[in-house]
């Protein structure tokens, strides 16, 4: 499996180089610019698929690691690696960009648009692959710049406000994290005499005093909670989503928000297990509040895009619940749900973008009876929407169900409330669907164009992923689970938290074993 080709470095460098190439191409040749952008993103997609194919199933640790000194004075290195937790996020990042590039049109200034998009991809890839705290922070921060310009340059009316809010919220979170990172490294140095930003080494040798660990965890958790976003730090998200161009929303929902949930697992639970267990009640509560709040507010929205944005808040609440329930199933479900949410919400944003492209409005009230005039379009929307609702047989169900059965064992009452969210999701999405697609189309909606071939081609992989993962999630879970178990084992080793384990670790597609609720230890 360890080929000599530095695949992970290539996954970061290729889009960055592509961005540079696009930026250097002449402005008067938009077709050349588009081709270069598309080819770069396709090359990255191919590499990420290759990574998926050569990933060793059943291996819990990091694979394809590559480490080169960068700033030796500070013990910082270019340190990359991928494990089951980050694997599918990396693949998702690789695949969603060509979809975003093909599935939406910037309308003006293609050159900087594509350059920023590719730079964004490099940053997101880097964040998921970094095993060095400094390097992670660098990528985590650098992501803000292209996203800021994408929202600000190609978004809707309130774009500047939304872009600035996005930038400042995230940066404020990062301010805490940077101090936390430095404190972690220096306290670790005081304890062990080794200056390192290496996450693996820190995880293995970290031995923080209880209160120190809790403070450090908090500094990280704030940054990630803004990014996720966890209620009540979510207020930037609806604005950013609503105002961003379609590709921006797709990527924001698809992968950018996952930086937060991924960070909570990798740099929260794994690095500070004691503090993670200690903070469970608060974070579980915030997650569940997010689920219910997001769902209720989504129901009330009149703007289709804002509705999907609030549904994101709800979905990410599930992932937070799964993460801090800290059972093998709930965490696996959480990781899976990160990918599922990326696929289905990304798909929804894509389709809302298509509607807005056709009708120049996203107001639910202005849309009516689209099913009559564009049945294929409506069918595609239905599939993606049902996946977002969590219909059995589609991918959303697998993730949510795993989270719920996993979390039920260690966080029963939170799970009970969270389950309400599943019903609410059906409510707000179906109601919106009913208003937009059902009924007789009025004058303005009668000429709504049907799905084009190109759009169909873009949606095809999304729908394929929804179907495949819904029916046969085992290949994904097989790769996710060993790494998740490693995290759970670490938590159990470092704390007196006991995570109940299913007797048989077999996962049928949707046949969760409910009979294992034998110990409901609350930590």
């Amino acid at each position: 499996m360890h080929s000599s080709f530095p695949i992970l470095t290539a996954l970061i460098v290729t889009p960055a180089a592509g961005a540079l190439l696009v930026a250097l191409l002449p402005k008067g040749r938009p077709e050349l610019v588009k081709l270069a952008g598309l080819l770069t993103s396709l090359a990255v997609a191919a590499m990420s698929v290759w990574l998926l194919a050569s990933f060793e199933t059943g291996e819990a640790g990091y694979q394809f690691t590559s480490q080169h000194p960068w700033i030796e004075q500070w013990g910082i290195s270019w340190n990359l690696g991928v494990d089951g937790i980050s694997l599918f996020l990396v693949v998702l990042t690789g695949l969603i960009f060509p979809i975003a590039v093909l599935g939406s049109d910037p309308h003006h200034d293609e050159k900087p648009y594509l350059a920023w998009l590719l730079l964004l991809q490099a940053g997101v890839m880097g964040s998921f692959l970094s095993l060095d705290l400094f390097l992670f922070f660098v990528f985590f921060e650098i992501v803000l710049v292209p996203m800021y310009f994408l929202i600000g340059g190609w978004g809707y009316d309130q774009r500047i406000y939304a872009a600035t809010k996005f930038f400042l919220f995230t940066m404020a979170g990062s301010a805490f994290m940077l101090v936390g990172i430095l404190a972690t490294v220096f306290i670790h140095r005081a304890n062990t005499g080794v200056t390192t930003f290496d996450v693996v080494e820190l995880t293995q040798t970290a031995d923080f005093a209880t209160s120190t660990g809790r403070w450090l965890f908090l500094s990280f958790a704030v940054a990630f909670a803004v990014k996720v976003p966890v209620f009540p730090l979510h207020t930037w998200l609806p604005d950013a989503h609503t105002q961003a161009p379609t590709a921006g929303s797709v990527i924001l929902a698809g992968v950018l928000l996952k930086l937060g949930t991924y960070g909570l697992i990798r740099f929260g639970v794994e690095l500070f297990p004691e503090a993670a267990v200690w903070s469970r009640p608060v974070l579980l509560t915030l997650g569940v509040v997010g689920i219910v709040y997001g769902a209720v507010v989504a129901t009330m929205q009149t703007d289709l895009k804002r509705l999907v944005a609030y549904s994101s808040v709800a979905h990410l609440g599930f992932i937070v619940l799964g993460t801090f329930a800290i059972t093998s199933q709930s965490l696996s479900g959480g990781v899976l749900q990160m990918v599922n949410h990326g696929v289905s919400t990304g798909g929804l944003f894509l389709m809302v973008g298509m509607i807005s492209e056709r009708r120049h409005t996203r107001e639910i009230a202005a849309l009516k009876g689209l099913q009559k005039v564009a049945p294929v379009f409506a069918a595609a929307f239905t599939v993606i929407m049902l996946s977002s609702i969590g219909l059995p047989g589609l991918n959303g169900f697998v993730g949510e169900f795993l989270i719920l059965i996993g979390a039920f064992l260690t966080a029963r009452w939170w799970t009970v409330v969270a389950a309400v969210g599943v019903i609410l999701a059906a409510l707000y999405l179906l109601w919106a669907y009913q208003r937009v697609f059902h009924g007789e189309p009025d004058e303005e909606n009668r000429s709504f164009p049907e799905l084009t071939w190109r759009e169909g081609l873009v949606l095809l992989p999304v729908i394929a992923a929804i179907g495949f993962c819904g029916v046969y999630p085992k290949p994904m879970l097989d790769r996710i689970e060993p790494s998740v178990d490693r995290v759970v084992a670490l938590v159990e080793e470092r704390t007196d938290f006991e995570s109940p384990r299913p007797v048989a670790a077999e996962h049928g597609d949707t046949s969760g074993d409910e009979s294992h609720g034998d110990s409901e230890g609350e930590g």
Partner: protein
Amino acid sequence: MLAQQFQGPSVDWWSLSPLLVLLGGGMVILLGGALTGRLWPKGLYAAAAATTAGAAAVLCFFLWDDVIDEGAQRLVGDALVLDGFGLFVTVVVCVAVILASLLTDDYLRRESLDGPEVYGLYLMAAIGGVVMAVAHDLLVLFIGLEALSIALYVLAASHRRRIESQESGLKYFVLGGFSSAFFLYGIALVYGATGSTNLGRIATFLDDSVAVGNNDALLLAGVALLLVGLGFKVAAVPFHTWAPDVYQGAPTPVTGFMASAAKAAAFAAVLRVIVIGLEARQDDWRPVVWALAVLTLLVGSVMAVVQTDVKRMLAFSSVSHAGFILVGVEAAGRGGDPTAADPGISGVLVYLIAYAVLVLGTFGVISVVSRKGDGATDLTAFQGLARQRPALALALTLFLLAQAGVPLTSGFIAKFGVISAAVDVHSYALALVAMLAAVIAAFLYLRVIVSMYLTDAEPGSPAAEPVRVPMSTGVAIGLSATFTLVVGFVPGWLLDLARDAAQRTLG
């Protein structure tokens, strides 16, 4: 009686060579310019000033080897020192002169100002700055401070046809005179308390007299007055009120020079006097520096956000940066191991060079955007710059993002250095305040970026007028941008230099 014959201190001329080169170059430009009138092609003045500063910087590298081999040395009867710290700051000042000269050349032509005086004054100010950085005696430091300040007063007022420039020079002069008086009185009080103006002897005296400590009031009052004087020069809150007016009114390249060279020299003096000279009394001054840092960070950032004139914004942002550097100062001087490099000092040094280059690049762009008359510095003057001059807009974006501390730029490395120094000594609260102040300040940089990229110039407004980028200015901006990125991606060499400099600081 031979003993009565005056015995001058021995002078190691080679070790003083950077100063001598700057002095010689300054004299040649001033005298040559005055005597030969308009014979010189205009660009030659700038070239001469830049070459002089470049030569001084090169000499610093030769001297650097000596310092590495032989350690720090005392010069001219212990009035000056030759050490890594002094050489590093000398190079920062020289770099500032080079970039400022490149920016000034076109500026003078555009504004139809003539005269070599500006370049001569740059070099004179540089001499003052270097003397401040290498002084080992409070009085020598004061001479450096005055040389720097007086040159800057004149420079600020050097645009003869702009009333704002005159106002700026006068304000700076009056307030600067005040602060010099404070500083001088502080020297007198410290002399009264310790019996010497020599930093080495002051340190020795304080080390020995810890147990006695009966002169506390005198000493503390002296230290406080020294802090006021230096705080004025670095524009630390509450001694910052001159900065916005002076920055806004002064000719733009001069503003850049002020924000880089003067700030670097003043912080060098702060470190010399407070951290190194008064190390024994760090428990007394550290809380004061802590409070100054917090105030400077917050007031600077918040006030920057509400400005509409870009030069004023950057004046306040420069105040906020001073706060960041104060975070490094607060963290300095606490290392247990005297032979190891002090992360606070090396952090400040990295910050000074990174900020000097950044701010000169920024003001370089502003200088060309301000157009003829040097008046178009309102936020609206930047509208649509990205369409009109994409490369220029990109460069300014880079400088602004770097000032905000976005990774892969020198600004991030600089911020990381001082923040890590602060966290290293458990100044968590201060580190956090600094980072949050950076977020506030980021809003202001974003405002400029929004103006450039996301809003279009209205036809007929000043922003619609074409922006001309002459070559020398372009070169200066290009050099600054390159440095910003190189340090952002490969900071190792600079960190090594700063560490060596901090390690070989005369304590």
